[in-house]
C-alpha cells in the first residue's frame, strides 16, 4: 500500500513530433475546408454537414458570379483604345449609334481622354509640371519614409513635415501672398508676448500659476512663430504664375485635403487628448469643449458653415480661400476624432507606467513623450488608421462647397456630350472606387506592418 502513492520518473519523456494530421497541407485542408462540415457520425450531424456544404457551394457560386461579371466589365468586354478618335462612338453599340457589336464593357478611352481633368482639375496646361514635380516629390518622400532601412529617415521625415508643405504651397499657388500690414504687426506682437512671457514664466518669475502655464505659453508662442515664418515664405514672389485654388481639382484636391488633414489631425489630436486629461481645469475644459463641438456636428455642416457662415463673421475685405477653409474644417474635424482615439490609448496605459517614470525623476513632457505616448499610440494604430481612412474618403464631401475632388472631377467629366454612353458613368465610378481603394488599402497594409514592427510582445 505504501508505494501506491510514491512515484519516481526514471527516464525523461521523449520529445515527439506532432501527429501528421496537425502539420502541413493536411492540417490546412482540415482547418479550412472540412473542420466544420465533414461530420457524418450520426444522421443529425450528417444533415447539418450536407446543409453547410450546400450553403458553401451556393455562396461560392454567387461570389464567383459577381467577381466574374466585374472582370468581364472591367477587362474582357472593355474598350481599350480609340484609334479613330470616335469618342462616344467607340464605346456605344451599333444600336446606340456606335461601332460595337454585342456587349460593351468599361470605356477606358474616356478615362484616357479625361485623364488630365481627373488628375489636375482645371489647373492650367502649361503649369502642370508644378503639380507633377510635387507628386514626384511626395511619392519619393513617402516611399523613403516607408522603407524601414533607408538612410537619413528622420531628416527626410522632418523635411517632409516642415519644408515640403511650404514648397508645395508655393509651387501649387505660385506664392506671393499679400498680407496686410495689420496682420503682420498683430502676429509679431502676439508671438513676442507669448514666447517672451512663456520663457520668463518658465524661470518661475511670474508666480506659481504662470509657471504651470509656461509650457502652454511657449508652445502657443512657438506655434505663432511658425505661423509667422510660414507667412514670410508664402509672401515671397518667385515669379511663378498664380493659380487660383478654384482651378485645382481631381486627385490633386483629394490628396491636398487628405494629406493636410492627416498630417494636421494627428498632432492636434494628441494635444487635445492630453489636454482632456490635464489636471489644469482651463486646458481640460477647453479641450473637452473643442472635441465635443467638432464631434457633434456633421462634416457637411462644417463645410457649409465654413463657406457660407464664416464670411459673415469676418471683417469686410478679409477673404479666406475656399480650399483653405475646407482644409481647416477637415483638419479640425478629424483632430477631434483623433483626440478620442488617442485618449483611448492613453487610458489603456497602466498607472504603474506613470509612477515608474515619475519615480525616475522624468518631467511631465519627458514622461509623456518617452513613456506614455509611444505605448498609447502603438495600441491605437488601428484606430488612428481607421480615422485616416475615414478622412481620406470624406474628402469627397468637399464637392458640396464647389471644390472638385477626384470623384467630383470624374462626375463632371460625365457631362461631356461627346462621351455620353451608357457605360461612361459606370466606368468613371469604377475608376473612382479603385483609386480610393488603392489608397485606403495601402494605408491599411502599412498600419499592419507598423503594428507588427512595433510589437515587443508580451504586454504587461
Amino acid at each position, binding site marked *: 500500500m505504501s508505494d501506491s502513492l510514491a512515484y519516481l520518473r526514471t527516464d525523461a519523456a521523449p520529445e515527439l513530433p506532432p501527429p501528421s494530421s496537425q502539420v502541413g497541407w493536411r492540417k490546412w485542408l482540415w482547418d479550412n475546408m472540412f473542420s466544420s462540415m465533414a461530420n457524418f457520425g450520426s444522421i443529425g450531424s450528417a444533415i447539418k454537414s450536407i446543409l453547410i456544404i450546400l450553403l458553401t457551394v451556393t455562396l461560392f457560386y454567387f461570389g464567383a458570379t459577381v467577381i466574374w461579371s466585374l472582370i468581364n466589365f472591367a477587362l474582357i468586354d472593355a474598350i481599350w483604345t480609340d484609334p479613330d478618335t470616335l469618342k462616344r462612338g467607340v464605346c456605344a453599340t451599333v444600336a446606340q449609334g456606335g461601332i460595337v457589336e454585342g456587349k460593351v464593357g468599361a470605356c477606358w478611352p474616356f478615362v484616357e481622354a479625361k485623364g488630365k481633368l481627373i488628375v489636375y482639375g482645371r489647373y492650367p496646361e502649361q503649369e502642370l509640371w508644378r503639380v507633377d514635380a510635387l507628386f514626384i516629390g511626395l511619392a519619393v518622400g513617402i516611399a523613403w519614409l516607408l522603407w524601414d532601412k533607408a538612410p537619413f529617415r528622420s531628416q527626410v521625415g522632418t523635411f517632409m513635415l516642415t519644408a515640403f508643405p511650404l514648397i508645395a504651397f508655393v509651387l501649387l499657388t505660385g506664392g506671393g501672398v499679400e498680407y496686410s500690414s495689420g496682420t503682420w504687426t498683430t502676429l509679431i506682437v502676439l508671438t513676442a508676448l507669448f514666447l517672451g512671457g512663456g520663457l520668463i514664466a518658465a524661470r518661475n518669475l511670474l508666480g506659481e500659476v504662470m509657471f504651470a502655464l509656461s509650457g502652454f505659453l511657449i508652445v502657443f508662442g512657438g506655434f505663432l512663430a511658425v505661423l509667422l515664418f510660414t507667412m514670410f515664405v508664402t509672401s515671397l514672389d518667385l515669379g511663378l504664375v498664380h493659380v487660383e485654388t478654384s482651378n485645382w481639382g481631381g486627385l490633386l484636391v483629394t490628396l491636398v485635403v487628405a494629406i493636410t488633414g492627416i498630417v494636421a489631425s494627428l498632432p492636434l489630436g494628441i494635444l487635445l487628448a492630453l489636454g482632456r486629461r490635464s489636471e489644469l481645469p482651463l486646458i481640460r475644459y477647453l479641450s473637452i469643449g473643442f472635441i465635443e463641438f467638432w464631434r457633434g456636428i456633421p462634416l457637411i455642416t462644417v463645410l457649409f458653415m465654413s463657406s457660407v457662415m464664416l464670411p459673415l463673421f469676418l471683417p469686410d475685405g478679409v477673404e479666406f480661400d475656399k480650399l483653405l477653409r475646407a482644409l481647416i474644417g477637415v483638419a479640425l474635424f478629424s483632430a477631434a476624432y483623433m483626440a478620442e482615439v488617442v485618449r483611448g490609448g492613453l487610458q489603456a496605459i497602466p498607472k*504603474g507606467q506613470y*509612477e515608474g517614470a515619475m519615480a525616475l*525623476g*522624468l518631467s511631465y513632457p519627458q514622461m509623456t513623450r518617452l513613456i506614455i505616448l509611444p505605448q498609447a499610440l502603438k495600441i491605437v494604430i488601428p484606430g488612428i488608421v481607421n480615422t485616416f481612412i475615414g478622412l481620406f474618403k470624406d474628402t469627397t464631401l468637399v464637392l458640396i462647397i464647389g471644390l472638385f475632388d477626384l470623384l467630383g472631377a470624374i462626375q463632371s467629366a460625365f457631362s461631356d456630350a461627346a462621351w455620353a454612353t451608357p457605360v461612361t458613368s459606370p466606368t468613371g465610378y469604377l475608376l473612382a472606387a479603385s483609386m480610393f481603394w488603392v489608397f485606403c488599402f495601402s494605408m491599411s497594409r502599412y498600419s499592419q506592418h507598423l503594428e507588427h514592427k512595433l510589437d*515587443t510582445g508580451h504586454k504587461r
Partner: protein
Amino acid sequence: MTTENNNKTDSDEPVIKIEKMNKWYGQFHVLRDISLQVKQGERIVVCGPSGSGKSTLIRCINRLEEHQDGLIAVNGTELSGDLKNIEAIRRDVGMCFQHFNLFPHLTVLENCTLAPIWVRKTPRKEAEATAMEYLERVKIPDQANKYPGQLSGGQQQRVAIARSLCMNPQIMLFDEPTSALDPEMIKEVLDVMIELAKTGMTMICVTHEMGFARTVADRVIFMDEGQIIEENEPEEFFNNPKSERTQKFLSQILSH
C-alpha cells in the same frame, strides 16, 4: 548602529525627516501622525497588515502620493507643491515597485539608460556603460537587449532595481518588491537587495520577508491603521514584541 530612538543626540542630519505627517483619501484618514527619521546608510523594513498605509507612507517620500499635513524633508529639501523640488528629490530617491513598472516598449538596456540620459543628461555611451555595470551586479547582463516581457518576474524585478541604481540614488525605496513573484524567484531578488544593503545604501523596504528583515534591517517599523505602532531593532522586534497588535501580526505571519 541605531537603537530604538534615533535622533536628537545624533549630530548628523537625517536624510529623511518626517514630522507629524497626515494624509487623507477623501474622508478616510490613511496616515495618522507619522514621525520618522532615517539616517544615511540606515536600512529600515516597514511591515504591517494590508491596508495599514505602509505603501502609502513610502510613496509619500518621493511624492507619488501627496500628504496634506505635516512635514517631509529629503536631504534637507522639503516636499511641497513645488515641481522643481519634487523632481530633484525623485532624482536622488530610487524606487522599486511590486509590479516592477518596467517600460515594455524599451529594451532592458534602454530602460536603464532612459533616465540617466534624459534627466541627468549623461552621454549615451557613458549611460550604457553604467547600465551594463549594474546589470552585471544584478546578474543579468546577458538580457540587456531583450524586452521586459521576455523576462521572468524575478529577472524583471532585478532589472527594475538596476534601473533605479543607474540614477545613482542616495536612497532606495522598495514597495513590496517580492510580493508578485513565484517562490523560486523571491530569493534571487532578495539576494540582490542584500548585496545592495552591504554597499551602505540607505534603504526603506515595505516587505513581508521576515528573514530579510532579520538579516538586513537596522530597524523594523510595524504599522497598523495608518499609524506607526512599534519600532525596534529586528532582534527585539521579533523576539520581544511589545504591543499586542504586533504580537498578533507576528504570530499570524510566522505561524507557518
